[in-house]
């Protein structure tokens, strides 16, 4: 009931004027926050904010990666599986299941990210060199990846009690600010900067806007696209590491499940065209927050979890509809 109200509010906001259209994602977020302030008990507490930033980190990291990919005109549906593989990899290093590497926290993180980078490199290479559609190539890794994650530890969850590692995910700066918030801020600024001020950022958007023209402008599209898929994978890997660290375990079955869908949804709600082109970094972040807030709203109001998916769907439809005209003009 309450959430139906949410969508009603967002809807009326969207259709009012073109200015509302431009800031539609922001208004949607504000609407959900306001609604929660009214209906959700204990929502207006600083702790809610800290928790939100902890919970939203994986979605934001994968959504940032997805912004690069979608901006370049592609898609990466393997990020959830990559999260699982990286999480299990870090767990295996931490619990000395790979004796040669020893138990070392930096080693666990480095190997988890390294394997993610390799997977992203494979994605990008197959897409560009063999000219296979991104959705097919990453679908393969989506299917195989989780299987690989399960096989790495014979399907079981790796539970670990390595303090140094679990501390990463639970670290609070000044006793209050969770490390995740810092990571979010750093990555958001870095991404925004990349798209606004670097050659690479221009190239990614140019390729998404017009691949042929990019080639004729002297852009090595193969190289740029491989980088894009590596970035997406490495960010997914980082998300996996954080998840494993926070939960003190790496469950290959659940880590990163439907993460790819949340990431795509965040980008779509944020206003980056699925056809590629201009990257809306701030939009993506707002989109990720909306997606996560819906989950929180559902959880905190004891609404069956299954509803969250339906509400997410409604938000996506409304947001994409609102931006439809903007893209045409």
């Amino acid at each position: 009931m309450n959430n139906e109200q949410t969508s009603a509010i967002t809807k009326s906001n969207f259709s009012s004027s073109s200015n509302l259209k431009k800031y539609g994602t922001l208004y949607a977020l504000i609407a959900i926050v306001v609604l929660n302030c009214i209906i959700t008990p204990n929502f207006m507490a600083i702790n809610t904010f800290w928790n939100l930033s902890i919970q939203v980190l994986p979605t934001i990291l994968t959504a940032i990666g997805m912004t690069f990919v979608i901006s370049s005109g592609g898609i990466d549906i393997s990020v959830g599986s990559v999260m699982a593989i990286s999480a299990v990899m870090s767990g295996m290093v931490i619990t000395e299941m790979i004796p040669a590497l020893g138990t070392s926290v930096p080693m666990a993180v480095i190997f988890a990210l390294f394997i993610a980078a390799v997977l992203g490199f494979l994605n990008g290479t197959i897409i560009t060199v063999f000219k296979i559609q991104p959705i097919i190539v990453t679908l393969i890794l989506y299917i195989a990846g989780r299987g690989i994650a399960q096989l790495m530890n014979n399907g079981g969850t790796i539970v670990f009690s390595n303090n140094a590692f679990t501390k990463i995910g639970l670290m609070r700066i000044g006793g209050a600010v969770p490390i995740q918030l810092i990571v979010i801020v750093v990555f958001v600024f870095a991404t925004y900067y990349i798209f606004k001020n670097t050659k690479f950022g221009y190239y990614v958007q140019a390729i998404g806007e017009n691949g042929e023209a990019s080639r004729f402008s002297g852009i090595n599209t193969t190289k740029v696209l491989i980088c894009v898929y590596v970035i997406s994978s490495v960010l997914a890997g980082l998300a996996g590491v954080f998840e494993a660290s926070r939960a003190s375990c790496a469950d290959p079955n659940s880590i990163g499940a439907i993460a790819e869908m949340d990431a795509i949804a965040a980008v779509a709600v944020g206003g980056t065209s699925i056809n590629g082109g201009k990257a809306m970094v701030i939009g993506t972040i707002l989109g990720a927050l909306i997606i996560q807030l819906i989950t929180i709203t559902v959880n905190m109001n004891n609404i069956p979890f299954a509803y969250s998916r339906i509400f997410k769907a409604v938000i996506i439809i409304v947001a994409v509809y609102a931006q439809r005209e903007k893209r045409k003009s």
Partner: protein
Amino acid sequence: MGKVNHMDRSTLLELNKITKAFPGVLALDQVGLKVGYGEVHALMGENGAGKSTLMKVLTGIYKKDSGQIIFDGKEMNFNSSMEAQLSGISTIYQEINLIPYLSVAENIFLGREPKKVGRIDWDRINREAEAIIDGMGISLDVKKPLNSYSTAIQQMVAIARAISVRAKLVVMDEPTSSLDEKEVEVLFKQIRKLKSQNISVIFISHRLDEIFEICDRITILKDGKLVGDFNIADITKVELVSMMIGKDATDIMAQAHGTYEAKEEATILKAEEIRDTVKLRGVSLEIKKGEILGLAGLLGSGRTEFAKVVFGDNVHHEGTIDINGKPVKLKLPKDAIARGFAFCSEDRKVEGIFPNMSIRENMTIAILPKISRMGIVDKKKQKEIVDTYIKSLAIKTPSPEQKIRNLSGGNQQKVLLARWLCMEPDLVILDEPTRGIDVGAKAEIEELIQKMSKKNIGVLMISSELEELVRNCHRVVVMRDGKNVGELQGEALSEKNILTVIAQGGMSDSFTAAERSMNNEQ
């Protein structure tokens, strides 16, 4: 064929005063076309002449605004290509419109498979398909999938399909564009066979020799209007070309064009015997610093393909390319750019602009490596470049942040020129630089080309507008069927002489005769 109208036995198809408008364009303006029984009729015209639109109106894909279609003695108004096919008009496009994964036999009978007790009668399909194919004098396995055969054979299958539906008229839209010479011969054999069975053919091609070899009559369109129809025996190639381009071959006056004054006789580009798998059959040319070299030729003569090879866009080519005297192997456009080359495509939309990006972003995309340090763009320099070129090229826009799609064609083209000029290139390749832009912007761009030459930049200019080439170029190389067949400069550089070389395929005796007659006229 019992229903043939005996009163008018000679005419199978008559199109009268067909008019078709699209928003903003009058694609066909009272166009007529008459095709006799068993006649091979050429439909000629440059791009945008209205050939394809006329054929689409005929076959029911487009609805005509006005006019009359009389086919086989009856007035017809087809609502779909299927209806047209059922009435006896089959179409064969340059891209085969059959299903590649189905067998040859299935393709021949697609949509009208013979049934036996509710099931498709495969035996009969294969048997009958084989009979048709045998009758055409080709040998192939009708049970094999279509895509296991070459394009030429696939075209034969399309013809077989036309025969099997008892077509009275077969429309062939550039059927030879992807065939080699031998395959063209095989196709022509089939066309002659169709003719002997009293089946008519409308043949669209840009290759002049083919028209004169296979066609009986010819209809010429230009800019949506009928120029005329002729017996092929009554028209010369020069006349045909001049009518297609809209220039009267007999009284083209020589126009002023600059002469090349070399400051230093340095060759920027030397290309020798460039060939590719389809279009190019040996192109050689040289461009010097500050020279404006025109590339003339009809559509499909390989001008754009040559330009793209030189710009590193086609790795599958033979021949040698020397840049500034050194042989190079170009793998990507970026290799050519690194050596000082620039390329403005004829297709701004597909190969030029980034529609939703700003003028600033569009203009500086190629120069980014030069104005970035450690991957970070120097925005101050970027802004300087953009401001400079918006001013010097007089680009009309309220702001450099304007999306390029909101600019007029001429201003878009200027932004693309600026993209390359800011790189200070040695050679600029301009493919149809004035296409789709208004007269004022045209003049500005032509002025810009002269300025480039003065700055010692070499220009390779491709244009279908001969007067533009004559007006701007120091020298013009004429291409035909993937080869350079002639070169004109100085006094000899005139529209008429270009036409002559295009038509005759070389600087033959008759060319010098044409030159003489032109000189006499002056």
